[in-house]
């Protein structure tokens, strides 16, 4: 899907508001041009000392234009923003729905949280595209066309000059500008990267640098990178001014052509003298409207890049699809099984090869192996975030591909390493699992996760805010809260992915014991690289030491 189609489909319901905004904007800019044109005529006419009555219409028009411009501009901005915000809301919901279908396997390219965030920010670009790019261009095009016709009727040469000048400002200058910007960016990008890497090293490695007395050497090196960047930026300064100069020249050229052509026309009688000022001075007001175009064009490139990224995501293929006729799953207890499974997040890059694994009812199995051996991929397969490329995954003997994924995820729960906490209260984070849970049920889940005592000490209790990404909580508290949430949901099978990562030994051991105590008689798969897990589980499956099969 192209970004243009994406924009069209998203904007179509708000088309009425957008048209209204364009009309109001055209009226406002038209009033500015009209004010200048009619005033010029009024003054020229007045110089011939006619009865004042003959000027009344022009006088009223001038005053009306004077009033209308501000009012219409206000209307344009309100209508434009209202329409753009409607489009934004629709696009957000649409992108979110799509992301929910794709996550997490379909977003393999976006697995880093930052990238998901950037995607979310990309949606906001639609506001810029509508209010800062399309609206000014539509208004300038309409007013420009009207002005060219007005001036051209009296003096074709002046009309042509105006058309040429407007094209220069609206089309040529933006192209030059983006070329210049690209050239400058191309020069600056490697230098910026160098400076950024050096800065990150300095800021994050400062203790090491100070302890080893290496700070001044680092600063000197950074000063060198910085000087190179400054010189590169200053070298591109001459280009930056070219666009502004061309805009000034275009306006001036229209004035010159208008005066010269007007003089010839008046002399030959083709043009009435009192219209000369109209032809010469109208372009002054028109170019004031057109002056916003180069800036609008700059927003265009950025907004288009954002919309393109969105269009790419929206047209990405879904990694798993719900079955047409889902098979019913018998009531528990359940057995999950991997049978000779191969899996890959991106086609052709197999991370699991010929893996067998069985998780019987009530079993406690640890899946160990070094990082990169595909432990988390096993978890993704079991909750069907991903389908195997060979072999099959079954629940009670039924291939997961024949089960409704929503139903599967009611049975099998997954607690990822970076279990996400939303920027809201403890209670609201828990109710993600069960919106209708009572406070007592929340407390029971917290007690199981050994977090209730701590929550009890908080002045706001369950209503305590956890902060962005749960940053108000310690690492252990975050894990326990995420565990409480999983327990509240009542999964019959629970997959715990690196539950103790980034905790110190003591906290890790305590958490692990509490985790296993809390899950009770549910089946548990613990994914870990810790070797001290063996004593706590029934079975250890080592992804590295799986029986090697002979590849075909």
């Amino acid at each position, binding site marked *: 899907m192209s970004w243009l189609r994406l924009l069209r489909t998203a904007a179509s319901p708000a088309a009425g508001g957008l048209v209204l905004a364009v009309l109001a904007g055209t009226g406002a800019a038209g009033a500015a041009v009209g004010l200048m044109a009619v005033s*010029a005529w*009024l*003054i020229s006419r*007045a*110089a011939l*000392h006619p009865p004042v009555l003959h*000027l009344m219409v022009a006088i009223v028009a*001038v005053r009306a234009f*004077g*009033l209308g*411009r501000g009012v219409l501009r*206000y209307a344009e*901005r309100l209508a434009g*923003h209202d329409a753009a*915000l409607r489009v934004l809301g629709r696009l*957000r*919901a649409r992108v*979110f729905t799509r992301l929910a279908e794709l*996550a*997490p396997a379909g977003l393999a390219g976006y697995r880093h949280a930052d990238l998901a965030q950037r995607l*979310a920010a990309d949606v*906001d670009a639609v506001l810029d595209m509508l209010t800062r790019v399309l609206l000014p261009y539509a208004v300038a095009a309409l007013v420009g066309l009207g002005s060219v016709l007005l001036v051209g009727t009296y003096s074709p040469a002046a009309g042509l000059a105006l058309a040429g000048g407007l094209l220069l400002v609206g089309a040529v200058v933006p192209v030059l500008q983006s070329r210049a910007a690209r050239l400058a960016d191309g020069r600056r990008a490697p230098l910026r990267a160098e*400076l*950024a890497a050096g800065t*990150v090293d300095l*800021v994050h*490695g*400062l203790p*090491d*640098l*100070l302890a*080893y*007395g290496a700070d*001044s050497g*680092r*600063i000197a090196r950074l000063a*060198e990178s910085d*000087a190179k960047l*400054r010189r590169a930026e200053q070298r591109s*300064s001459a280009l*930056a*001014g070219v666009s*502004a*100069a061309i805009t*000034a*020249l275009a306006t001036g050229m229209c*004035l010159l052509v208008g*005066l010269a052509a007007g*003089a010839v026309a008046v002399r030959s009688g083709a043009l009435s003298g009192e219209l000369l000022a109209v032809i*010469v*001075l109208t372009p002054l007001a028109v170019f*004031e409207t057109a002056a916003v175009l180069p800036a609008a064009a700059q927003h265009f490139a950025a907004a288009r890049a954002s919309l393109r990224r969105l269009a790419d995501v929206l047209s990405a293929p879904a990694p798993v699809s719900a079955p047409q006729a889902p098979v019913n799953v018998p009531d528990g207890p359940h057995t999950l099984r991997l049978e000779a499974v191969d899996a890959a997040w991106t086609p052709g890059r197999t991370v699991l090869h010929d893996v067998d694994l069985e998780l019987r009812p009530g079993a406690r199995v640890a899946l160990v192996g070094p990082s990169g051996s595909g432990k988390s991929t096993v978890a993704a397969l079991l909750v069907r975030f991903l389908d195997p490329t060979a072999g099959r995954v079954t629940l009670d003997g039924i291939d997961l591909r024949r089960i409704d994924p929503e139903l599967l995820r*009611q049975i099998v729960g997954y607690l*990822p390493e970076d279990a*996400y*906490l939303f920027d809201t209260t403890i209670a609201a984070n828990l109710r*993600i699992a069960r919106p209708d849970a009572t406070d007592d049920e929340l407390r029971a889940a917290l007690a199981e996760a050994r977090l209730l005592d701590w929550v009890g000490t908080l002045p706001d209790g369950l209503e305590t805010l956890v902060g*962005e990404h749960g940053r108000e909580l310690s690492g252990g508290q975050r894990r326990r809260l995420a565990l409480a949430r999983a327990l509240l*949901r009542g999964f019959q099978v629970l997959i715990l992915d690196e539950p103790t990562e980034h905790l110190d030994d003591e906290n890790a051991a305590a958490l692990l014991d509490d985790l296993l105590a809390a899950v009770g008689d549910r089946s548990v798969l613990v994914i870990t690289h810790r*070797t001290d897990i063996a004593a706590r589980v029934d079975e250890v499956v080592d992804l590295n030491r799986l029986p090697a099969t002979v590849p075909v």
Partner: protein
Amino acid sequence: MKPLDPRLLRYARGTRVYLAATVALGVVLAALIVAQATLLAHGITAVFLDGADVRTLTPTLIALATVVAGRAAVAWAQETVAVRSSAAVKSELRGRLLAHLVAVGPARGGDTGAVTTLITRGLDALDAYFARYLPQLVLAALVPAVVLARLLPADLTATMTIALTLPLIPIFMALVGLHTEAANHRQFRLLSRLSHHFLDVVAGLTTLKVFGRAGAQAATIRRISAEQRRLTMRTLRVAFLSSLVLELLATLSVALVAVGIGLRLVSGHLDLTTALLVLILAPEAYLPLRQVGAHYHASAEGLAAAEEAFAILETPVPARGAAPAPAGTIVFDDVVVRYRDRDALHLSATVEPGEIMALTGPSGCGKSTALDVLLGFVTPDHGRVTVGGVDLASVDPAAWRSTIAWVPQRPYLFAGSIRDNIALGRTPMHLPEPPTAFAHCFTGTVPDAPRPDVAAAARLAGAAGFIAGLPDGYDAALGDDGAGLSAGQRQRIALARAFLRDAPIVLLDEPTANLDTETAADVMAAIRRLAHGRTVIIAAHRPELIALADRIVDLAPQPVGAR
């Protein structure tokens, strides 16, 4: 909001030069605007009333072409000067920021990510501030003044009309602004919460899916977006009022002036040239003021970035002594470090030269803080540390640190080769602050340890084996904070650093945490070699580390806390 933060002039001298250049260019531009209007008024009158043909008009046309060329040149110069100045100002601020960060040291706290973003990309917000907002501000002051000066001798009535309405614009905008600012502020806070919600649910998408809540969230997003639109529009209806006032006043004034001169022209109180001059110049008087408003965002963002930079530059630099590095018995004399209203460290201890002391206790009891105090990264809130009877506060920290080899819990690995990273211990210590012009002379100084030394240190640290296995050996480039190396490998590179430094005092911060048993044993062997014949202080958790010590100090709070 102040249009120009005076601190910008103080911290970035480039700003003064730029302001001077902008004012000079503004004066020239205003003169050209007046000249252009005068020439147009004369030209039109000559053709219309005096019947001039193109030939008699030629001098006017040539003069007009010159003025146009002049305006283009000024426009070019304005942009060019703005880009050059902005580059110079950013560079100056970056230099000061980096130097200040080093001077303040690691104790500054705060968000390192935000600092990095500010230095690398955040300061770019100043580009638009310098290129758009500041010049417009200068023009808004200069152009009306020059235009009015030109109109005054030509037509008093029009001059008075403009002179009286012009100040109304800032006054009314200020009034509207005052009335709406508080309300806007509240609503913008609410709005940013709503936008944040979308980011939050996208980031937590996998979790929502696990709990089957993704579908319900789509409806919430729709509802919240509608709410956001309603609130935004309410804010905008008021926010756009100020620009409505501005446009109304400016355009209506021009319309009134135009009608006024038209009527006086009819009655013969005015000639056409003057009338045209007024008509052309009147909008020019209002234009810069109107455009200042349009660049409000450029201003706000630029000043916000500058404000962030100033906040860092104004963090006080801790006082430091100048005495040479002492040697001898290290005494923690009732040292207390407070953090968030509680004692993060409370320590009294003595370490004799050649002794190994282990600091033990649960996490969070201040083991690392004790090492930070000794390194001079943290200043005690109470008590003092003496070495050989000399208070550390009076000692030059760089000189003191040159007697220490430190192996942190998570050593930082710099972009560069493994050799450079190990040779960090061999950097010349007392480099004078290099003058910028000679900065290039100092770039080669960082790691210049001879090859055998580095290899020997790596062998002693037990790192030689895995380094030899890397494709480029000691020249292997480390990416992004040593990406690709395991915790054990990082630890051994840090130990190699310490061996190469060959300092009498060694500080080890949980060097075997996060290591598996096998790797931990290798690292332990290296630590034993390193400890030999030196004064060693270890923040220790594991029993085999504690067993190494001659003296054990338990930092656990008394009585033992809940955690």
